């Protein structure tokens, strides 16, 4: 699928989760999608976990930091209106330990915050730049685990709404990978694990850092032949590493390797391919 067709699909969504193994370029895909949607006239925000990879946010897009205690506070205060009481009870180091350590609570209040943004329709599109695979699974698992632990109470009611949201067709989950054997294998496993958790709407597989095809000539001078051959063999290797992805039945969005190591430049080039100006 072309990258412009990809961004058209985003027009039909209001919430997009982006995940994948560590270091595959999740944040780049998340921000480029946000930027491209914004250039198409949408009001867009990117939400990411605290301590996430330090990607410089481009102007014009709201950045929402998903921090446990802040989300917890906001969440509880939306239910009980007594801020003073909240402060007395929860502005206490002991309770802070409790909130951070209580099983699944952190992920659940963060999911609650995402629900709130989605529900209020604050943005046309909210892109959630998720943590790496392991934590992403834990995140989508948390409502199940928490459901058993918190069988009553406010947290429990919160869960029901999160389950509803994940089923909604306006919500999509994309996976990001690299054109190498192990990352591809891990993507297959990640999808299998996520599928078991919720009836999520899987969208696209993003393949980052694909070596461009320069249509290199068969006959080149001996001085540059080894270099060209090495490149071409690597490029073919990348292409064949992607074959197992066909089994997933998800459309692929391809992002080339850019000749830059600057985050801003790479982001601009990736965005351009989605929303050409």
């Amino acid at each position, binding site marked *: 699928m072309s990258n412009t067709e990809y961004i058209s699909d985003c027009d039909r969504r209001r919430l997009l989760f982006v995940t994948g193994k560590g270091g595959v370029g999740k944040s780049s895909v998340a921000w480029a999608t946000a930027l491209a949607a914004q250039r198409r006239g949408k009001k867009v925000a990117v939400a990411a976990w605290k301590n996430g990879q*330090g990607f410089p946010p481009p102007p014009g897009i709201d950045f929402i930091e998903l921090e446990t205690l802040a989300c917890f506070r906001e969440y509880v205060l939306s239910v009980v209106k007594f801020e003073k009481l909240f402060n007395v009870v929860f502005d206490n180091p002991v309770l802070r330990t409790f909130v951070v*350590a209580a099983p699944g609570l952190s992920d659940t209040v963060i999911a609650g915050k995402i629900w709130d943004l989605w529900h209020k329709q604050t943005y046309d599109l909210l892109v959630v730049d998720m943590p*790496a695979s392991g934590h992403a699974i834990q995140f989508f698992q948390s409502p199940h685990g928490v459901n058993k632990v*918190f069988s009553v*109470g406010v947290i429990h009611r919160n869960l029901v709404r999160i389950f509803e949201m994940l089923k909604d067709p306006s919500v999509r989950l994309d996976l990001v990978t690299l054109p190498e054997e192990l990352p591809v294998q891990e993507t297959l496993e990640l999808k299998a694990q996520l599928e078991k958790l919720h009836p999520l709407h899987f969208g696209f597989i993003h393949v980052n850092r694909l070596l461009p095809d320069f249509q290199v000539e068969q006959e*080149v001078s001996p001085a540059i032949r080894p270099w*060209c051959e090495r490149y071409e063999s690597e490029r073919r290797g990348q292409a064949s590493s992607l074959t197992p992805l066909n089994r997933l039945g998800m459309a692929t969005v391809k992002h080339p390797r850019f*000749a830059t190591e600057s985050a801003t430049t790479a982001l601009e080039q990736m965005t351009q391919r989605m929303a050409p100006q």
Partner: protein
Amino acid sequence: MRPWSDKRVLLVGGPGGVGKTTLAAALGVRLASQGYKTVVLTVDPARRLAQALGLKGLHNDLQRVPMEGELHASMLDSQRYFDQVIERFAKSREQAERVIAHPLYRAATSSMGGTHEYAAMERLLEFTERAEFDRIVVDTPPTQNAVDLFSAPKRMADFMNASVLDWFRGDTKPRYLQWFQHGTKMAMKLMEKVFGSDFLTNFGSFMEDLHGMHEGFRKRNLQVMDLLRGPDSAFVLVTYPSEVRVRESETLWTTLQEERIELAAVLANRVEPTPPPIPTPCPPGAQRLLEFSHGVHGAQQEWVRALRGKMPNVPIQTILRRPHGPNDIESLSSIGGELIQ
């Protein structure tokens, strides 16, 4: 400063996806071939490591790597290992059984997010105490933040800290209701409203089961920090020459300085070799390719220079990218040779 290959404990860490595991394995292979009895310790389900070392899979037990020189690999199933730690710190077998069987135990250990990190640090101490190995290379878990790694034992201790327990202890039943007697009726109501009373009872009983265990974790924390700050340990930062990774490396370095842990070397991984000059004349396809290659190479070199500028007193080594990834002892050994001459 001693050359970093003289350190007994090397913690290999850095941002996700930069090739930490491979470089940890390469270091292990190199040190073993130099005659040091070496162990590489990993906590990830690191198939890459097992594959490269010619092992079928990594088990909890030590596995000897088929090569000349003595190299062992150890992979942890962190949950199982954590259970053993609980057994060790428990006052009695009954206490350990109660904790492990508690409905909140699995959930609590995973949500603290520290079991991987904790297991790595605990296992490291175990190996140093056994004095069996000359070199211990730790392939650290992909932690967003280096502090999470070192502070895992501390977080565990904090969680089990007596003061948290005090909240839930008392002589009335259920125990958490003791709050009422302290005049915090409103607070209790709020807690109940938010968490539900079942959870509070459960949590109270879990904390009760953990009673007395925080001391063990606290001691471990001090031991870990002593070891890491000591003259025999150092951190090896693996990174990649790009804007984002260089910035992350700087943050990590700051943390290491705050924690007073020596940074022995920075390894800028997957650096492209210098492309040949573009000949004249050159067919257009090859020209496009070479321009691209020079672009990538130039961009990487710029960030290698930036790294050198930002971390002036740290040895920074560049490691050439292997197009097909190292998948045997020989290729690991060749990388290892680049690392330590």
